[in-house]
């Protein structure tokens, strides 16, 4: 068992445990902190999968921007364990059954799929670096890039219009 495998399993366990804690913890602030841990471990997975730029973007955008926004809103609304709405036991059961069926279907589809267990090439580790990504982004993917800028503009305007005081 070499370092990569140890890292892989450690990050996997951390991601799954963090996700479980996000869903089950009563206090929303704890949920956000566990979600940040999950995002960091997913970023570690990205680095193991040769997507270094995306790992850094994931940390900056998710853990840095979105989660801070969440945390800020939760603290603004003064949410804590006491304001958390009571959960129905039947609702929990139904959620578990529905999500479990989905998981079962996924795992069954995975089992019967014919993906050969390929190992990635070691020498091509620079595919996820910013030089290659930038060249491709501004040649092949320039139209989606511009469309996403329009999306951001409209989202910004929408957020300001919705959020402003009457």
């Amino acid at each position, binding site marked *: *068992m070499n370092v*990569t*495998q140890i890292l*892989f399993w450690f990050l*996997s366990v951390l991601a799954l445990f963090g*996700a479980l804690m*996000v*869903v089950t913890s009563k206090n*929303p602030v704890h949920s956000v902190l566990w*979600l940040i841990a999950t*995002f960091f471990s*997913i970023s570690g997975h*990205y680095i193991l*999968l*040769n997507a270094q730029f*995306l790992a850094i*973007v*994931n940390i900056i*955008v998710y853990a840095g*921007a*979105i989660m801070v926004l*969440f945390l800020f*809103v939760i603290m*603004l*609304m003064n*949410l804590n364990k006491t*304001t*958390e709405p009571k*959960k129905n036991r039947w*609702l929990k059961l*139904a*959620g578990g059954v*529905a999500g*479990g069926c*989905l*998981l079962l279907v*996924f*795992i069954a589809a*995975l089992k019967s799929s014919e993906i050969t*267990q*390929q190992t*990635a*090439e070691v020498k*091509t580790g620079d*595919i*996820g670096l910013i030089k290659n*990504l930038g060249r*491709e*982004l501004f040649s092949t993917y320039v139209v*989606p890039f511009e469309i*996403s800028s329009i*999306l*951001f503009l409209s*989202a910004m305007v*929408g*957020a*300001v219009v*919705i*959020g402003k*005081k009457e």
Partner: protein
Amino acid sequence: MTEPGLYQILFISAALFFIGVYGFLTRRNLITMLMSVELILNSVNLNFIAFNKYLWPGRMDGLFFAVFIVAIAAAEAAVAIAIIINLYRSHKSIDVKNAEELKY
């Protein structure tokens, strides 16, 4: 312990997706529901990158899908939080039960 490969990472992302769906169905707090959606989006990202690495190692399409998903998730979170703040201002609560008036 087997060598970590495509199967293992697909299993992890499926489990993350399941946890996200479970949280989305059971939590009644709008912000934690939004966090579950972020979990689901991240599991999809993990899938895209894993497929990109293991099946088409020379291409970058999966990476770009993941980049655009991250961008869309950021925009979605901003708009959703604006809506939540507006709801909180009028109802003093972000329970989804109180958001039923949005229907009318």
